[in-house]
């Protein structure tokens, strides 16, 4: 595999850090200039990430060492196919979210907007850091930075509930990462003498140095420590984080933060342990069953939630485990499905969160039970919601179908019948908690208190344009991913090729 040395990955990270600084010094003096920095940074960041794609498609990797702290401990970036998919998704959606954020915070006249945009920019920097990291140390470094700089975003409202939620958020994420993940990192270093990701699996290569028992313990510690993946029973922080402003929930708790979690899980499975080792230890199947439980249980809980954002949060928990499930199957199609689902779920879920925010801004409604007839008032928003929901369910012609297809193929390859049943059941459950919303929005009569002014009954009252356009775009994105998945499939195939060797 050809290695190109280039500072582009570092640049992609630096862009939004510089932006954060500019946002901070611009402050409230000129809101437009401040927002301009955010937009500029997001566009530049996406362009930088995009400029790396041709190399990746040629099967090369891009490396850049920022700093070697001591032997085996360095801040190093290596952009490969897996990283670029995540990087592309997150940086592209940041552009859209930036516009949406501006619409959201200005409509609601949020306080501490500067802090909000600064933290957002830093969070995106750190997300790129995780996506492009070449070793577990770099990953851990940025993983922790994400936790810390998103804490102010979750606590943004500064109400007692927000503080409470943020505290839970921090306790789960920081606590488990120090207690379990860091210990696992230490043990990995102890066994392998380095922390570099290897395509055949770092610990696979160092198998002679450790007993199977120790390896199993390391694996469990990793899985318990990467709480950002929100696997049950360590999922409680995600619903708690829903106190955050909606754009935060949309980009961070549907894309950046949680995807960082599953991305690190994928990295640990493929590049730290390796398919070979996990198959021999039988840990892949165990992880797959854990993911299955999460998928079903979270979906069932989602059915019972009346608060729209909480319902979406439980749906996210369930969908994140799809990614884990795919990679845990350790079969080519499963891994492809898993990588695809990172992007596809991102587009679908961000649309859903965007609509939740738009509904809140336009009508101040937060509960599913209040949404009767809202589709007549907000047709574009609810149309996008429908697209997102259908993609979640996995109905063609939407992106969700593709990843689910590959996941099912993966389950067949792994000869795991129960997994197929779980996939089917979860599809039904997804339909069960999304379709009633769509039905109520378009076909039910609005609640009686809106009737007192019959003249305005059918009038369109959308959220601000800055919010509606982004959510329509991401909704269309979920559709485009079905029509033209080749681009992402190609990259996924390269990532797969690196870890399994064959086709």
């Amino acid at each position: 595999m050809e290695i190109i040395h280039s500072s582009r990955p570092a640049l992609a990270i630096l862009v939004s850090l510089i932006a954060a600084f500019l946002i901070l010094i611009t402050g409230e003096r000129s809101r437009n200039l401040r927002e301009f920095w955010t937009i500029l940074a997001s566009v530049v960041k996406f362009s930088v990430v995009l400029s790396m794609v041709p190399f990746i498609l040629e099967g090369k990797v891009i490396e850049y060492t920022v700093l070697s702290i001591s032997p085996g401990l360095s801040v190093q970036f290596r952009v490969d196919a897996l990283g670029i998919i995540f990087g592309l998704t997150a940086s592209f959606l940041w552009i859209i979210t930036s516009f949406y954020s501006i619409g959201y915070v200005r409509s609601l006249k949020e306080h501490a907007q500067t802090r909000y945009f600064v933290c957002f920019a830093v969070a995106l920097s750190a997300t790129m850091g995780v996506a492009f990291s070449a070793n577990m140390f770099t990953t851990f470094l940025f993983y922790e930075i994400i936790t810390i700089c998103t804490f102010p975003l979750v606590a943004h409202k500064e109400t007692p509930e927000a503080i409470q939620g943020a505290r839970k958020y921090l306790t789960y994420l920081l606590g488990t990462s120090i207690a379990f993940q860091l210990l696992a990192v230490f043990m990995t270093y102890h066994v392998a003498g380095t922390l570099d990701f290897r395509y055949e699996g770092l610990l696979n290569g160092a198998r002679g140095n450790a007993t199977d028992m120790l390896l199993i313990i390391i694996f469990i510690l990793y899985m318990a420590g990467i709480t950002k993946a929100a696997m049950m029973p360590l999922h409680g922080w995600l619903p708690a984080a829903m106190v955050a402003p909606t754009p935060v929930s949309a980009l961070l708790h549907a894309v950046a933060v949680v995807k960082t979690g599953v991305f690190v899980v994928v990295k640990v499975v493929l590049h730290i342990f390796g398919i070979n080792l996990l198959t021999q230890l039988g840990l892949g199947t165990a992880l797959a069953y854990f993911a299955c439980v999460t998928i079903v249980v979270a979906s069932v809980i989602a059915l019972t939630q009346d608060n729209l954002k909480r319902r979406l949060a439980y749906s996210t928990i369930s969908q994140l485990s799809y990614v884990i499930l795919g990679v845990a199957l350790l079969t080519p199609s499963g891994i492809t499905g898993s990588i695809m689902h990172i992007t596809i779920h991102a587009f679908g879920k961000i649309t859903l969160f965007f609509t939740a925010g738009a509904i809140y801004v336009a009508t101040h409604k937060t509960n599913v039970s209040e949404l009767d007839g809202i589709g007549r008032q907000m047709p574009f928003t609810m149309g996008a919601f429908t697209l997102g929901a259908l993609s979640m369910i996995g109905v063609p012609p939407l992106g969700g179908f593709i990843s689910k297809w590959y996941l099912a193929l993966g389950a067949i390859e792994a000869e795991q019948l129960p997994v197929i049943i779980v996939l089917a059941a979860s599809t039904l459950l997804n339909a069960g908690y999304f379709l009633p919303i769509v039905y109520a929005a378009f076909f039910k009569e609005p609640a009686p208190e809106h009737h007192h002014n019959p003249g305005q009954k059918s009038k369109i009252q959308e959220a601000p344009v800055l919010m509606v356009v982004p959510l329509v775009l991401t909704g269309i994105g979920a559709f485009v991913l079905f029509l033209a998945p080749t681009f992402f499939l190609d990259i996924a195939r390269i990532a797969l090729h690196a870890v399994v060797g064959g086709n």
Partner: protein
Amino acid sequence: MMMEHLPAIIIVFPLIMAFLINVAGWWSKKACFYMALLAVTVSFLASLGILNTVLQSGTISYRFGGWEPPWGIEYVIDHLNAFMLVIVSGITLPVVLYSKKSIEQELPKKIPQFYTLFTLLMMGLLGITITGDAFNLYVLLEIASITGYALIGLGDEKAPLASFNYLIIGTIGACFYLLGVGYLYIMTGSLNMADLAQRLPALYSSNAVMAAFAFFMVGIAIKMAFFPLHVWLPDAYSHAPSTVSAYVACTMTKVGAYVMIRIMFTVFEPSFSIQLHPVTTIFGWVAAAAMMYGCILAVAQNDLKRMLCYIIIAEVGYIVMGISAANRMGFTGAVLHILNDAFMMACLFLVVGAIYYKTGAKTIGEYRGLFKKMPFTSMSFAVGALSVVGVPPTCGFFSKWYLVLGTINAEQWVFAAALLASSLLSAIVFFRVLQNMFFAPAASSSHDQGSESHVQEKRHEAPGSMLIPIFVTIAGILLLGVFSGQIIEMIIQYTVPEGF
């Protein structure tokens, strides 16, 4: 010519300055600060010169007054104490800069006395670090301790009692140390550390030597506030003037740790401290208890300074944990942590002092919404706190890295777990504070009207002479983390005792 005598200058210059400051204080109180600053700067430059010499040509041996050891007093400077000298004098510099405003407010009538004692304290600490003579070390230890008692006694209304308490316990510690020296002198007829190290191995089975070792360890444990002999510390450090708390917090316990390393691995051989007696194993368990105890009690504190005092007790546990791992990784972690902890504690105590200076706030409740008033100070506190928790890229992460790897290499899984558990507990400790500082619960009216002019009108930042030292420590915390590999390669790897 000058370079040769640096080991003398680093001690003698502040000693002379201390007396001159006292004299000058009769004429001008302002001059005291500048004289102290001069003394500290000269010592710092001298320590850099010494470190440079050591790095280039290895261990320096300086004979005071030209007397041959083992009769005369010999100063021996290897990588370890050259490193310590730079830490101690390097951290004194920002503290003394910071002291100007803080002392003018807290001790307006006692400025000359303060700077006299302060300079003497630094001289004592440097002396402990530089000397190669076990008895001379005792003398300097007492100089440092007695000036410490006096400085702490200058604090608030409860300070004299706390200081008296510390005096009693500290003197007992010094006595234990002196007993150890005495026993060794009876057995070997020597007080010079290098000489002792040569004569002792033949006597390792002697009960008197074992007793001497035990006396040493207990004495030092008291001086460095190693659990369970720490009881004097929280009272003494929390009632002292802010500058004094900051200074003793970041130097005293570290110098104590240095003395422990010296006695365990230079005067006695590693084989004595590790194989002949299970000292390191016992210390490992006690250190684990210290970390837990320190952090748990820190959670229970409302007074910021007192909370940090308990964190110090935990940090001392970290250092001892590294020593007790008895391998290269662990030892590296311990020495690195001496450096890092000095900066972390300096940062946190200076910040707490600056906040007290500006707002009079002492308890966590009073810290509410402080970020709006003092954004830079609050940010600095956050960096220091993250470093104590051990979040990369702050330096606290890197020493923890080596410490945990040290315990894992020693296959002491319980100790590794204890290290991580105490990180978690310190996360709880600090996020409780940070949350109050950064997110004032809805009390502020900034909710409905955006925060535009709000921030500007309430800003009430600490003066520059306090902020700059704080920023120096922050830069230290970040740079030491990034360059920890280089520091280990250049200096710390030579400090590791043979056989590790």
